[in-house]
């Protein structure tokens, strides 16, 4: 008997008890759909977050004070006394590192910004002009913070779109004075609208010169220095080396700061989110195994019910392997068709959910489809072998006598 005929016969046998076969298949459908769906959630989250990270600007390097071990060891902890990062460090990088496209010192805090009787609690960032290029955030109306503003410690402010809308509505804010903390700042520009990045509204922010920022937050150090490396090849590596050379030299030969590249950050988060995806797939896989147990259960019942059929077939010349194959094909058909339906159901849900909830990132990846399909095939074999072997080992005389 060739395979096609064996499959046709198995389909007929399964069709003879439709409801039972359908319910058994449902176990696999749910398992496979769960795998596809949860992997889609995990992959979607990873693609979303890495996408957002790369949206920060390209070839970004972040320098933060304190040496943190970001790889290996038992978590992060600072070692020894640390120098603070200062504006002089940023200026030294700007002057001396030829591998860098731009350097932007950052001081940052949350402050209340007031205009007339309106106020808004928002993020205040102290920086200088290169910030626009490094972070790919640009002023739309008026000017950004200039070098002169920085050098003269001028109290000028550039408003993010959200802050402008909240405090000024449709009015033109340029030239107006807003109060931040204890100081009054003159509005010189308004930023382009950018929306959300990594869940943070980057329009809900104001920019002031880094020097007046330090006065505002009463500090002589920096929160971090953002650096953009030049494009191409191993520039990122060279840039990191330059940064370390320059700052270590300035910090009495101590590496008391941390250089994190955007790509390293993406790699780390990507890895974490991959693990998340695997964990989700594993949990969903459990339900697929339960579906497999359902197949085994129903095949055992089926073998029992069809004992006489097995006896007849053996009397007519069926060998052990013929009977084994017959029952094995039935369980594989259950699991494979369950797998196909599960892929359609799971994929369908995963693709249609973002239509209803646009913010929900979902990615149906080929590997999850292939894995789920292959896995369901092997579930069919694994849980089908035992019942099929039982059938094939039946003694024909006993089987023929079975009522």
């Amino acid at each position, binding site marked *: *008997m060739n395979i096609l005929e064996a499959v046709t016969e198995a389909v007929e*046998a399964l069709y003879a008890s439709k409801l039972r076969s359908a319910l058994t298949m449902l176990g696999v459908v749910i398992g496979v759909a769960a795998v596809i769906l949860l992997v889609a959630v995990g992959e979607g989250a990873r693609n979303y977050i890495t996408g957002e990270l790369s949206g920060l600007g390209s070839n970004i390097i972040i320098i933060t004070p304190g040496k943190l071990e970001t790889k290996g060891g038992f978590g992060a902890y600072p070692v020894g006394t640390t120098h603070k990062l200062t504006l002089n460090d940023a200026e030294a990088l700007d002057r001396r590192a030829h591998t860098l496209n731009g350097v932007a010192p950052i001081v940052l805090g949350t402050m209340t910004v007031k205009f007339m009787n309106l106020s808004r609690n928002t993020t205040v960032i102290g920086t200088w002009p290169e910030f626009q290029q490094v972070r790919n955030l640009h002023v739309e109306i008026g000017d950004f913070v200039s070098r002169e503003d920085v050098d003269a410690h001028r109290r000028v402010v550039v408003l993010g779109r959200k802050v402008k809308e909240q405090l000024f509505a449709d009015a033109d804010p340029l030239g107006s004075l807003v109060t931040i903390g204890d100081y009054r700042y003159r509005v010189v520009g308004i930023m382009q609208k950018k929306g959300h990045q990594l869940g943070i509204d980057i329009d809900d922010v104001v920019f002031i010169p880094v020097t007046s920022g330090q006065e505002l937050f009463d500090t002589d150090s920096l929160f971090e220095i953002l650096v953009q490396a030049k494009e191409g090849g191993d520039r990122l590596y060279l840039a990191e080396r330059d940064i370390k050379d320059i700052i270590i030299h300035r910090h009495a030969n101590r590496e008391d700061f941390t250089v994190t590249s955007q790509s390293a950050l993406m790699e780390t988060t990507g890895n974490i989110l991959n693990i998340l995806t695997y964990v989700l797939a594993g949990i969903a896989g459990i339900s697929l195994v339960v579906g497999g147990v359902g197949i085994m259960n129903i095949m055992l019942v089926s073998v029992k019910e069809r004992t006489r059929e097995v006896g*007849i*077939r053996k*009397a*007519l*010349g069926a060998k052990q392997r013929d009977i084994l194959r017959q029952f094995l094909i039935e369980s594989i058909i259950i699991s494979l068709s369950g797998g196909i339906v599960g892929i359609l159901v799971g994929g369908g849900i995963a693709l249609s959910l973002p239509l209803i909830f646009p913010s929900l990132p979902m990615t149906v990846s080929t590997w999850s489809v292939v894995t789920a399909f292959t896995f369901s095939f092997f579930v069919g074999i694994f849980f089908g072998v035992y019942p099929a072997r039982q059938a094939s080992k039946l003694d*024909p005389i006993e089987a023929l006598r079975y009522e």
Partner: protein
Amino acid sequence: MLIRLDDIRRTYQVGTVSVNALAGLSFGIAAGEFVAIMGPSGSGKTTLMNIIGCLDRPSSGSYILDGSDVASLDDDRQAELRNRKIGFVFQSFNLLPRMTALKNVEVPLHYANVPAADRRDRAVKMLEAVGLADRRSHRPNELSGGQQQRVAIARALVTTPTLLLADEPTGNLDTSSGREIMALFQQLNEKGVTIVMVTHEQEIAEYAKRTIRLRDGKIESDETRTP
């Protein structure tokens, strides 16, 4: 000799007691014979049928079927032998309920690896031979008892076996269907089919040319009727 049994014994272990179902019997059957095996229940008829039909093996003794020594064969070789040399007809017909008459007749040909088209032709011819050409697409539950048994006979003969083995073939049939089946057996026997039939009905046994009577696992009598 088509069949040669020599000092066949079959012992069952029931708990600690061993039961001698067959206690040493020897006989031969030539090609073209029509033999009835009779005996009261417990006489060993069924055990003998199972051994002749290669469904069971003797505990001791030798059984030669068409030149091969059956006692020494493994399960798969026995299955092959059943497929090629023996056609079974059972008291309860034993058709596969999901399949049409035609498909039922095709089953043994599947296991003989006959190609699909050939299989169909042979099954159709066989159904014609038992007078059921017009019932080929009916399922067993749409056929009368007599018709079901005819399908079973067609299935038994479709592989052109050396031996037709029937176990109480009329046991589940009314008298007139039973007579029709026996008439069919005689017709087949006249065409050269060797038939061995177990029955406990004297009337049915009389259709056979030779009657072997068993008692307590031994041959009580072996008579050939002279016409």
